[in-house]
């Protein structure tokens, strides 16, 4: 909301400085976004009078001016077509900052002729958009007078009005708040009621509850010329373009008093007006040069031919006023905010009027607004006013809040004198009768109960006066995270410790790519981009996109993880928390002391184990299955399961998937499903550790077995041979080359034997070896390699 200082002073009697006003506005909740002071930017510009105009000898379109500064005549080169002798314009001398360019003017040589200054156009001073010629100052001021003394620019405040404060979309509302804050007194500006001398030839009825009050006035014999300077200047100061006196008057009350008005050219209307619901498919050729197709829920103002305006939002072109308008119908009405908001959203229509009606204007002063605007039309355009025609009525509803003034202290901690609180409410327009507080008509959309009154008093009294009360835990803190919350923290740290960088990527993705990841089709109705239109069914795709991006930026070797949600439905809580890690390219850079290799699925499997171990999952009891989902390489992937529950997927990403992401090299990934982890053990205690004083010994075995048989089966079988003695079984070589029989592989194991009570004798070791070989043969058909 923009308003100028002089406009404010129409409603507020104040001596406060611009700085005081600005600071106070922000303090009471009308945050000042900008104070625009054109005067300071225009310091240094002076009035210059053109004494002679000659053609530039070297350029057809340039003139050579002699400009009188009050002290001397300067030679200035100027291209403006409107230069003439005797004209006064705005002169910039070398060294002056030109607002449009943000640069200081320098003496220049233009086409071989020295130019000692510049005559300015409106746009160069940021006073408007006109660049057709230099400013023609129709002024009596002498050459040399500072330009700001001629222009007398206004200070403009731009405040951010919160949606609850519809009343502050009028300068009078802002003035009232400032008066309550002690910055002056509110002026009475209402015109005396205009009785009118004849009955309006046009009547109006309202047929919808969305328009409880609709008033019109017929004014005949007006002249709709240009507005007077004071009015044009006010509108220009807040960025509005003056159009004609009638239109400017409606804009004046819109901004000045938060009363959107409308004027119809009475001679373009057919018959009487009706405020009614639109019929489906009715059209309106509107003033914003768009044609709107209306629907049944929308309110229109119609004459006998059809809709002539979208009520409260936009007038129609066919009945608009112009310079030939003689008879005019003025409309001052009230529309239901919800109806206005809905209609405007459906039509995608914006207007200053809509912006105010949808926040709620003051229905109680609508009739007075009609009087005020009528009086100004009579003053500026002449003519004769009819009696006012009123359809509907002002609701007599009053809201009275039974208010316990102690609530202010209870909710804010501020001790404020009772008289002060009463004073604040009174100036804001509340009726105060003991504890009975009557809400003013212009705050009916905002003030409903005690808490609202507490805010009114507190904000005007000032939040700077809030006490500072410290909060501490009532007892020492030993940890606030629940087990599930702790798991996320631990997994993040563990994966970072495994050399991966944590990323945070969008929760949504491209639905076309989601198809590759068991997409559940969880679409966003209004996505921000067509490639961010579905909730991700897995964390893998966004990390693959990250790999592709990094690769294109010259980093093909990625180690990235994310911990976050994946979605399986579009309802609340249809999401799982997953940790996902991807690695691509080589395991590291080339180095003199280490040879990198291509990443493989065992890197991903290691990441899965690292994540699971960090959250105390039973990693020793996990089974490995070959049932990873379709985005993994079918032969190079697996799952880690506890019973039937999948705790993690791991493996190489399927080459067809990589192709869809335009990734050339190999990528491996793991997904760890944190929600699937078994509950954390309640006991902290470990089993007692018995350390044997006897030396462990190792024996190597090489078995020949079927290629298809999983090594884990063999290892697990051997572990089971003697759980007391066999401390570890380590796979240290696998060979599938020519020296193996077809379809077979050679598997080399180092078995660690840990005697418990006594040193083993040779026969005992022999016996254990025989059992190991026996089990290997029995369980997986492995034979000892000869």
């Amino acid at each position, binding site marked *: 909301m923009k308003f100028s200082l002089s406009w404010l002073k129409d409603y507020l009697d104040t001596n406060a400085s611009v700085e005081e006003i600005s600071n106070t506005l*922000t303090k009471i909740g009308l945050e000042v976004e900008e104070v625009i002071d054109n005067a300071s930017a225009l310091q240094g510009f002076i009035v210059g009078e053109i004494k002679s105009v000659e053609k530039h000898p070297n350029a057809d379109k340039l003139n050579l001016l002699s400009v009188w500064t009050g002290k001397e005549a300067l030679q200035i080169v100027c291209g403006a077509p409107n230069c003439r002798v005797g004209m006064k314009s705005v002169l910039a001398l070398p060294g002056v900052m030109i607002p449009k360019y943000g640069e200081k003017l320098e003496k220049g040589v233009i086409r071989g002729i020295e130019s000692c200054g510049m005559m300015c156009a409106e746009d160069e001073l940021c006073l408007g958009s006109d660049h057709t010629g230099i400013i023609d100052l129709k002024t009596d001021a002498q050459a040399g007078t500072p330009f700001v003394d001629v222009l007398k620019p206004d200070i403009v405040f731009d405040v951010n009005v919160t949606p609850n404060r519809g009343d502050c979309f009028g300068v009078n509302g802002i003035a009232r708040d400032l008066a309550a804050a002690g910055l002056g007194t509110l002026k009475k500006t209402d015109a005396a009621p205009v009785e009118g001398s004849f009955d309006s030839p046009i009547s109006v009825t309202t047929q919808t509850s969305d328009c409880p009050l609709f008033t019109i006035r017929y004014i005949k014999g007006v002249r709709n010329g240009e507005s007077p300077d004071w009015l044009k200047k006010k509108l220009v100061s807040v960025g509005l373009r003056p159009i004609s006196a009638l239109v400017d008057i409606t804009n004046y009350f819109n901004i000045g008093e938060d009363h959107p008005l409308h004027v119809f050219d009475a001679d373009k209307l057919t018959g009487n007006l009706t405020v009614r619901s639109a019929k489906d498919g009715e059209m309106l050729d509107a003033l914003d040069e768009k044609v709107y197709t209306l629907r049944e829920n929308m309110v229109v103002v119609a004459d006998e031919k059809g809709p002539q305006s979208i009520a409260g939002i936009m007038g129609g072109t066919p009945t608009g006023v112009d310079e030939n308008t003689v008879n005019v119908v003025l409309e001052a009405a009230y529309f239901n905010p919800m109806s206005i908001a809905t209609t405007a959203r459906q039509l995608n229509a914006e207007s200053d009027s809509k912006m105010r009606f949808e926040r709620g204007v003051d229905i109680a002063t609508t009739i007075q607004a009609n009087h005020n605007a009528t009086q100004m039309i009579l003053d500026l355009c002449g003519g004769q006013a009819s009696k006012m025609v009123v359809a509907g009525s002002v609701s007599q509803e009053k809201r009275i809040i039974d208010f316990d003034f102690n609530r202010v202290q209870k909710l804010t901690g501020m001790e404020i004198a009772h008289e002060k609180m009463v004073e604040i409410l009174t100036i804001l327009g509340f009726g105060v009768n003991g504890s009975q507080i009557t809400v003013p008509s212009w705050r009916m959309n905002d003030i409903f109960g005690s808490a609202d009154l*507490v805010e009114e008093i507190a904000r005007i009294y000032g939040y700077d006066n809030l006490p500072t009360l410290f*909060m501490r835990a009532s007892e020492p803190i030993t940890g606030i995270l629940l087990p599930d919350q702790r798991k996320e923290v631990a997994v993040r740290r563990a994966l970072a410790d495994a050399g991966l*960088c*944590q*990323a945070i990527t969008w929760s*949504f993705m491209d639905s076309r790519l989601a198809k590759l990841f068991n997409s559940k089709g969880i679409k966003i109705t209004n996505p921000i981009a067509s490639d961010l239109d579905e909730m991700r069914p897995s964390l893998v795709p966004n990390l693959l996109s990250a790999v592709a991006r990094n690769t294109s930026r010259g980093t093909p070797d*990625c180690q990235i993880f994310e911990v976050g949600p994946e979605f399986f439905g579009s309802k609340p809580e249809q999401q799982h928390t997953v940790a996902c890690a991807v690695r691509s390219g080589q395991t590291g850079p080339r180095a003199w002391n280490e040879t990198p290799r291509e990443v493989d699925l065992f890197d991903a499997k290691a990441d899965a184990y690292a994540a699971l171990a960090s959250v105390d999952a039973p990693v020793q009891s996990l089974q490995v299955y070959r049932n990873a989902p379709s985005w993994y390489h079918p032969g190079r992937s697996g799952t880690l399961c506890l019973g039937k529950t999948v705790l993690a997927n791991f493996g190489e990403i399927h080459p067809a998937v990589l192709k869809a992401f335009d990734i050339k090299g190999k990528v491996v990934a793991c997904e760890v499903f944190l929600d699937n982890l078994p509950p954390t053990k309640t006991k902290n205690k470990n089993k007692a550790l018995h350390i044997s004083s006897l030396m462990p010994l190792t024996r190597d075995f090489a078995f020949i077995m079927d290629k298809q048989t999983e090594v884990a089966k063999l290892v697990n079988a051997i572990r089971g041979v003697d759980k007391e003695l066999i401390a570890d079984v380590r796979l240290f070589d696998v060979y599938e080359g020519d020296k193996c029989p077809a379809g077979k592989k050679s598997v080399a194991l180092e078995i660690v034997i840990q005697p418990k009570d006594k040193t083993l004798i040779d026969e005992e070791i022999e016996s254990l070896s025989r059992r190991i070989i026996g089990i290997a043969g029995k369980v997986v058909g492995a034979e000892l390699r000869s």
Partner: protein
Amino acid sequence: MDNIENLTSEILGQIEKALDLNTLEEIRVSALGKKGRLTEQMKTLGSMDPEERKTAGQALNVAKDKIAGAIDEKKIALEKAEMDKRLASETVDVSMPVRPKQQGRIHPVSQVMEEVLTIFAQMGFDLAEGPDIEDDWHCFEALNFPKNHPARQMQATFFMGEDNVLRTHTSPVQIRTMENKKPPIRIVAPGRTYRCDYDMTHTPMFHQIEGLVIDKSTNMGHLKGCLLEFMKKFFETDDVSLRFRPSFFPFTEPSAECDVGCSRENGEFKIESGKGWIELLGCGMVHPNVLKNCGLDPDEYQGFAFGCGLDRFAMLKYGIPDLRSFFDADMRWMKHYGFLPLDIPTVTSGLSFNAGVKK
């Protein structure tokens, strides 16, 4: 006797000149071995008369000890010289790099989230969470946003069909908490939030943290004290000033925006008082309608709520310029702005590594 002295000095001379351990061993054998020259001399003692034997024996023992001592000494010296020579030959160019190791990193948002939790834990707050997809009730209705109210337009909402939305703020967690727990309540709720907005300073997904305190007496003074302590601890400076400005949120009444004092000199942002303000968060006393919607009597219970952008806190504290880069997963960015895995903020070790350093 002259004989022994001459012999001794001759052998000592040889020892002195020995260049390696082998030569030294030869000298030892030739002097003290079974057939060594001194050993031979010892053998002549038996043929001497007692007086003479005593004198000669003593002299021989002295000579033996002297020589053995010299050999030991020389041996140590030669061994050292030999090792020095070997070590010199083993010299490596220590300027060469170590084996490459992939250094993982923690994202600044996660780091800052842990920092924030560490601070609020000490003020007695628990951690609460809620889903990313929310229903209209939790995201708007219960928070006192009437349907079609212009306040909803402040929030560019992503819709998930007719009934659900991607939460536009973490405030729904307030509702979920109050629906499930009786006061007193003190929670903070961090998480992902979504708005249909994408430009220099907005991303369609970002992070917020919500705070909620409900009991029978907590007022705006406590809100001020709580936020002041939080800012001091988070920004790790005592020079913090806060400014509360009246504002509007449907779910708080009275409502406020909280600004913190800061300076921006030579492009460097710093939290300090008296040089300007930056808007940090929105807050207020929980609206009576919100309490009622959660089954709490507003005449009995009251409290405050606040919500702020975690990404922004990370940007301000750690000087990270571009919000959009937070979600780009650029390896170079993560390695530069990320935190080491064991740089864990705790009550005992503090928040950031340079926290204890005098500025």
